[in-house]
């Protein structure tokens, strides 16, 4: 029997849990990011889609941003969490610049910072729902790394998030090599992005390719890829197999 009225607040905003919110599941999400090292630096590609469940709601979302002088960050997953991360990095770069000592944070440092942020959030069961790709060049040294929402992080010659891991990485393992030219790098990324367009439900046909070198960052204007549908089996699926679906 409960004689004493419970002092527990009914409204969840009145209790000790009031000031923090958890991302339990994502709402507006970006899909794969693919990146590789090439002769002069890093090339990264991502489409411009922001999906809302299965609806392709937003089609001009920039999922790659330049960080400081030496880094480029690409993100998949919850867009609002990505925007929050950009705010954290803004502050990080600002404080770094305020030292005014001629030193600036390189990609390795930014990647490490992001890893700590992602991992500590994961430990509090309140993750930032993103998979991040961090690339850059400083003092001639190329760097390409990735961090996931649970804090898994590593560097490699080519990385990808989400579906890119399943569809793009195998292509890159076959065709990537040291000292790719800019043209070859772009073509290789476009090959990966085209496969993702065919086979990832949340991909849209509007992408950007970003390049970072010692000189600086360039993010291309949005563009679309041509797709191929002229296989005779596509026009006549039942030709060699009557009754097929």
């Amino acid at each position, binding site marked *: 029997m409960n004689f004493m009225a419970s002092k527990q607040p009914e409204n969840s905003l009145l209790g000790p849990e009031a000031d923090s919110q958890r991302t339990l599941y994502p709402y507006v999400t970006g899909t794969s990011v693919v990146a590789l090292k090439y002769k002069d630096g890093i090339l990264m590609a991502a489409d411009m889609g922001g999906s809302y469940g299965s609806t392709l709601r937003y089609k001009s979302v920039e999922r790659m941003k330049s960080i400081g002088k030496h880094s480029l960050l690409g993100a998949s997953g919850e867009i609002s969490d990505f925007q929050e991360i950009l705010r954290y990095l803004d502050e990080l770069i600002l404080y770094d610049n305020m030292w005014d000592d001629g030193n600036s944070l390189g990609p390795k440092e930014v990647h490490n910072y992001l890893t700590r942020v992602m991992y500590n959030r994961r430990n509090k069961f309140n993750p930032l729902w993103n998979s991040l790709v961090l690339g850059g060049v400083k003092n001639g040294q190329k760097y390409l790394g990735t961090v996931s929402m649970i804090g898994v992080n590593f560097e490699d010659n080519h990385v990808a998030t989400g579906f890119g891991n399943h569809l793009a990485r195998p292509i890159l393992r076959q065709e990537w090599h040291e000292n790719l030219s800019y043209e070859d790098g772009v073509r290789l990324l476009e090959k990966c992005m085209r496969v993702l367009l065919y086979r*990832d439900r949340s991909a849209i046909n509007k992408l950007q390719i970003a390049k970072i070198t010692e000189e600086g960052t360039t993010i291309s204007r949005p563009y679309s890829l041509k797709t191929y549908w002229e296989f005779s089996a596509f026009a006549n699926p039942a030709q060699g197999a009557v009754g097929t679906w």
Partner: protein
Amino acid sequence: MDLNMNVDAPHSMGTTIIGVTYDGGVVLGADSRTSTGMYVANRASDKITQLTDNVYVCRSGSAADSQIVSDYVRYFLHQHTIQLGQPATVKVAANLIRLLSYNNKNMLQTGLIVGGWDKYEGGKIYGVPLGGTLVEQPFTIGGSGSSYLYGFFDQAWKEGMTKDEAEQLVVKAVSLAIARDGASGGVVRTVIINSEGVTRNFYPGDKLPLWHEELEPQNSLLDILNAPSPEPMNI
């Protein structure tokens, strides 16, 4: 993020399917994407399936369920045609679809659109959504992509269209749904059925119109970068 992609998820045709009557027959339309979870298992599926020479069905929902229902109905209609001595009517085909959908409603998850032409009633479209309701309509839409088309059809549908107007409407509609529904995509297939027979058409993904925020496809970024700068204006 989702590194444990579920390749064993049931094959579902997210889909956009449409059936429209016109003056003289019907036009059936569908996209071509079959997905397993988020992976596109087949980007060129054929969701418009033949039941008899003059009756076809558009399938949506579970790929397995819609296939098995179509198979049974085709089998029954075949026997029915032999016994009747003439082509089955669209109404009979639709009712058979309904019987299976209704009597197995707890186990099936498939929405179907039956369309065809017979000599008694001409071109007819019947919708058989989840649950097994049978509704005869001048036009009907189905599948996950159809959510994006209710407003469009409210505005664009007109009584007494010609064959070409009806087909253009269907292609435009499926193309609009593909632009917004992640579960729809690929090519647009149409099937036109009238007294003269059946015509199948194929509209590949790169031939469909471009909608809001979609761009003209290019071979490569390199082509755009190497394009000549605009000429100075002659003012």
